[in-house]
């Protein structure tokens, strides 16, 4: 593959293809991922090329998908499970939390669980109930799992391959409303490590943290702030479990101010953990408490209300203002 401009969706598709070419043990499983290519077409064309044994259209039951993935992993396979939408991961929750997350520890390392759970997550697509949620905290609170969220085509392309090659189970979150965002992807570059956050825009006044779909929002806010002479440093967290906060600590030690942005409900969202850790580590550098911008503590609303529910540029700037006001 030559360097080319790709959407996040297509980058995932090509990343999956590459992973399947590189390792015959990689098996994709999910609802409608075969002939249809998935409701978002992320697996488009893969069943045609790799066959029904490697791209498996499953019965309609998420516990079944994850539970059989566990068995396949025990047999040496590397299952990549697609959950059709974020809100449908819960029937699989028992398998994920009590089995996938625990089997490596239970067996004292004798059984590996190299399972990737792909979840298109987040809102903003005008969908009906259960199609717009951000369940990442449920997984990040679970020892034994790792959780990553991609925000751009380059991370999508490399990240999915890194996740598949990784020996631990990974919840791989894809920002569904950004599937069509484009960037150039050069397959011959050395990818950044999977479990590392990254400063995506330098700045001096406030450190803004985001991941997945909110990275773009944070960058837009930084752009707007710059016009008003305010300089925001934006960090794409990329990995939610483990968190990679050293770059954040460095940044906050300089800026003294920190705002975390995510779509998930604020209460016990990732922002809570980050606020706690940043405060523990940078206590004497902070000039304001870490502020959180997130979804309200309500169920994700009907789509006519989602613009008001979701953090946007203005709400990020509002938090920046409040932080500066301390």
């Amino acid at each position: 593959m030559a360097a080319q401009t790709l959407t996040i969706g297509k980058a995932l598709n090509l990343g999956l293809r590459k992973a399947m070419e590189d390792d015959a043990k990689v098996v994709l499983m999910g609802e409608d991922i075969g002939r249809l290519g998935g409701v978002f077409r992320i697996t488009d064309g893969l069943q045609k090329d790799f066959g029904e044994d490697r791209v498996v259209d499953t019965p309609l039951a998420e516990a079944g998908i994850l539970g059989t993935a566990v068995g396949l992993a025990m047999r040496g396979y590397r299952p990549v499970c697609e959950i059709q939408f974020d809100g449908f991961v819960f029937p699989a929750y028992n398998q994920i939390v009590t089995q996938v997350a625990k089997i490596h520890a239970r067996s004292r390392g004798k059984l590996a669980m190299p399972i990737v759970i792909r979840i298109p997550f987040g809102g903003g697509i005008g969908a009906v109930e259960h199609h717009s949620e951000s369940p990442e905290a449920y997984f990040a609170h679970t020892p034994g799992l790792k959780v990553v969220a991609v925000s751009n085509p380059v991370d999508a392309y490399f990240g999915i391959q890194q996740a598949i090659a990784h020996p631990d189970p990974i919840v791989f979150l894809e920002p569904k409303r950004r599937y069509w965002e484009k960037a150039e992807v050069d397959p011959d570059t050395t990818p950044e490590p999977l479990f590392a956050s990254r400063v995506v825009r330098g700045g001096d006044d406030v450190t803004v943290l985001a991941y997945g779909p909110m990275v773009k929002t944070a960058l837009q806010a930084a752009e707007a702030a710059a016009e008003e002479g305010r300089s925001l440093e934006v960090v794409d967290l990329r990995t939610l479990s483990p968190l990679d906060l050293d770059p954040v600590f460095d940044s906050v030690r300089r800026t003294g101010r920190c705002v975390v942005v995510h779509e998930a409900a604020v209460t016990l969202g990732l922002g809570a953990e980050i606020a706690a850790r940043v405060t523990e580590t940078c206590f004497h550098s902070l000039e304001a408490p870490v502020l959180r911008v997130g979804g309200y503590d309500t169920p994700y609303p009907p789509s006519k209300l989602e613009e008001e529910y979701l953090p946007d540029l203005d709400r990020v700037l509002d938090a920046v203002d409040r932080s500066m006001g301390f």
Partner: protein
Amino acid sequence: MSVSSATTEVVDPVPGAEAPHLPQQPDLVQLLTPEGERVEHPEYSLDLAPDELCGLYRDLVLVRRWDVEATALQRQGELGIWASLLGQEAAQIGAGRALQPGDMAFPTYREHGVAWTRGVDPLDVISLFRGVDNGGWDPVATGFNLYTVVIGAQTLHATGYAMGLQRDSAETATIAFLGDGATSQGEVNEAMIWAASFSAPVVFFCQNNQYAISVPLERQSRVPLYQRAAGFGFPGVRVDGNDVLAVLAVTRAALQAAREGQGPTFIEAFTYRMGAHTTSDDPTRYRLASELEEWKLRDPIARLKAHLSRSGAADAAFFDSVEAEADELAVRIRRGTVEMPDPPGTAMFDHVYAEQTPHLAAQQAEFEAYQASFEGGEH
């Protein structure tokens, strides 16, 4: 043993799933042939007056028109998405009309036809697909629960509600709707286990429309779905889902058995999703046009119309009047949709709890202040 060989060894494939040949299926209850001929069935009889037959025809035509209009509204950007019932009208009207007022129905997201029979305003269904709310009707007053999008979850609710009916010594029953794909969900199987264990007055009404989005029935079961019930210890029956009379008769009998304390029944309405899964779907990716053509020959409306004409139960004037009524309905739906107001932003806070928490009240107040700051031109 290779997988390919193993997976092709399907035991007792579901007849009709690939190339429908309904009449050859001895276990399929039918009272009206695709050609509109009235036939008898040893176990299920039905004696309807002409105006009752006409009423069913009217139902079928009106819900199809509603559906067509909603699909058009979605294409024009007025709805976020629409889940079409095209081809499943008879299954839904037959089941819905079998219900008595005190019965309670638990739909999926596609039972617009059942909603209709429960007196739910089409606009109250459309508001969900427009993104205004999650369905505007009153589940208690209508005896029709809100749509449930998480596949299968409602089957347990229906069973629990039926357990409540037992405790109330109520002489009513519940009906749980589900799709063929839903039969694979653990919760659906638990619902059947519960229903059997408690002899709950619940009917499981499965519309086997041959697909779960793109996945054909064979992936979910290699034996006919109605046979599932026997494994749980209660009767299962397969009915021609495109035959409104058969569906009505079979569902009535099952509901009556439930009301009389005989416990659950599983009904497989053998039908076909003639449209896309939803307006977001592209069925040309996974099924052949010829399959659809075959099923068009079994259209549920055409066969009742043929029967009404042939038997003299209805004349051209009747058909015209239903058509006119459908046109009016379409106009009302269109106007009601485009005029439907957006909800206020605060609506998302309103009913999270019966007793709102101080925390959420504070969040709401912040939200309101923030919104007001724009109006005041502060930002």
